[in-house]
């Protein structure tokens, strides 16, 4: 069990550690825990570097495991490597500075990145006046992510790409459903439809796998950072396109089918311009069914974490009550193309 960190712990220990890294005196102050993150903690810190290459004031974020951190797909070091690879191909991300894998500094592994300003909360973003060009930028940034070659860019920890991403996703979700207490026939229905309608496999690419409104920051109408890389991995690129457009991630702004902030076409155009290839519209429909199934399965898992007493949380408890509308959407989407 790792103890909780206080603002004082962080400023003191990071000052010493960063002074060592920079080879000069570094004064860390204003540590403030940022909201959100049951699995990770994010702390805003200011660093004053006295001399050398990094001399000056820096607004930073320190990201570490939360004390109750459950093992998720990626470690902090892996997330750091993903941010670096994304930054190198021009994706808007908080610039990663360095990663510390020793646990004797803060008691947990952590990395440091630049602090980016803006709003991420989905329910707020979709209620703002949307600036022209945001949808296109979101499309372009996603295309840049898909241009990363995990085998070349230090992302070998992602393993080998699946031969058939759609089928491996379906198999995974069946397995997830099998350990739940309750049966979910509507989700089974969706998975069955997905098995029957699986598209021809395409070459898998690095996918973000949680690229949606709520997981990027916008400041003064501009995209400033793509966040939440913990699910990144190999998949069919269409999975990311569809996840972004799926109705379940529009935060009620259903008329803007691109994540509640843009039109599908603007988002698609940005993607097509940057990637240089045309998107397969039928494939997007398929992966939108997958998006609702995936979210429904994850929501059931989150609800189970509360119900089993593993982690009592109102947020997790309420997630159970998102499942019915996801099931309804799965059924609606699979009616007209029923075999």
């Amino acid at each position, binding site marked *: 069990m790792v103890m909780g960190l206080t603002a004082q712990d962080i400023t003191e220990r990071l000052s010493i550690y960063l002074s060592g890294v920079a080879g000069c005196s570094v004064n860390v102050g204003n540590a403030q825990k940022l909201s959100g993150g049951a699995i990770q903690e994010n702390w805003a810190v200011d660093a004053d570097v006295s001399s050398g290459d990094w001399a000056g004031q820096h607004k930073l974020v320190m990201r570490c495991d939360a004390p109750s951190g459950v093992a998720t797909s990626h470690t902090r070091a892996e997330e750091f490597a993903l941010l670096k690879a994304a930054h190198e191909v021009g994706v808007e991300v908080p610039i990663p500075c360095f990663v510390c894998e020793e646990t004797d500094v803060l008691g947990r592994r952590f990395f440091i990145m630049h602090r980016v300003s803006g709003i991420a909360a989905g329910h707020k973003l979709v209620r703002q006046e949307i600036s022209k060009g945001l949808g296109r930028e979101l499309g372009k940034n996603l295309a840049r992510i898909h241009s990363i070659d995990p085998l070349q860019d230090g992302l070998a920890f992602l393993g080998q790409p699946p031969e058939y991403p759609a089928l491996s996703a379906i198999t995974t979700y069946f397995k997830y459903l099998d350990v739940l207490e309750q*049966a979910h*026939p*509507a989700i089974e*229905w969706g998975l069955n*439809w997905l098995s*029957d309608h699986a598209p021809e496999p395409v070459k898998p690419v690095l996918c973000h796998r949680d690229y949606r409104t709520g997981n990027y920051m916008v400041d003064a109408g501009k995209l400033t950072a793509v966040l939440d890389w913990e699910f990144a991995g190999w998949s069919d690129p269409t999975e990311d396109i569809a996840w972004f457009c799926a109705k379940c991630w529009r935060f009620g702004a259903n008329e803007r089918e691109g994540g509640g902030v843009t039109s599908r076409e603007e988002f698609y155009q940005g993607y097509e311009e940057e990637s240089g290839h045309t998107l397969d519209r039928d494939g997007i429909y398929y992966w939108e069914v997958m998006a609702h199934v995936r979210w429904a399965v994850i929501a059931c898992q989150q609800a189970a974490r509360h119900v089993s007493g593993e982690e009592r949380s109102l947020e997790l408890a309420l997630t159970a*009550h998102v499942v019915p509308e996801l099931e309804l959407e799965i059924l609606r989407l699979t009616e007209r193309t*029923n075999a």
Partner: protein
Amino acid sequence: MRDRPSGAELLDIAREVLRDKITPDLSPERRYDALMVANAMAIVLRQMETGEQGQKDERQALSRILGMEGDLETLNRELANRIRFGDAGNPATWKVLHDVAVAKVAESNPRYLSADE
């Protein structure tokens, strides 16, 4: 006989106080918590209003298409198995699943139903 206001009526007014009087004074993070509490109360309220009718209807519909009796958990498990191992794409099954989903959304988030019909 219990006195009025009933449990549901109490919950309703309590939710109104939380939403209209308490929430506006809270910090943004606590406001989010308060809105979640209000949302949870609203779901409970709608479940109290429907009572057990939705569960009864679901059990009947499942019994009918499966041709067997049992509690809801057993029936749902059986239907899930049949869908996975053969009975997929059946319009009658779709109809039952759809009706059940609509009834559940009516309790969990009725706005979802009115938003696009």
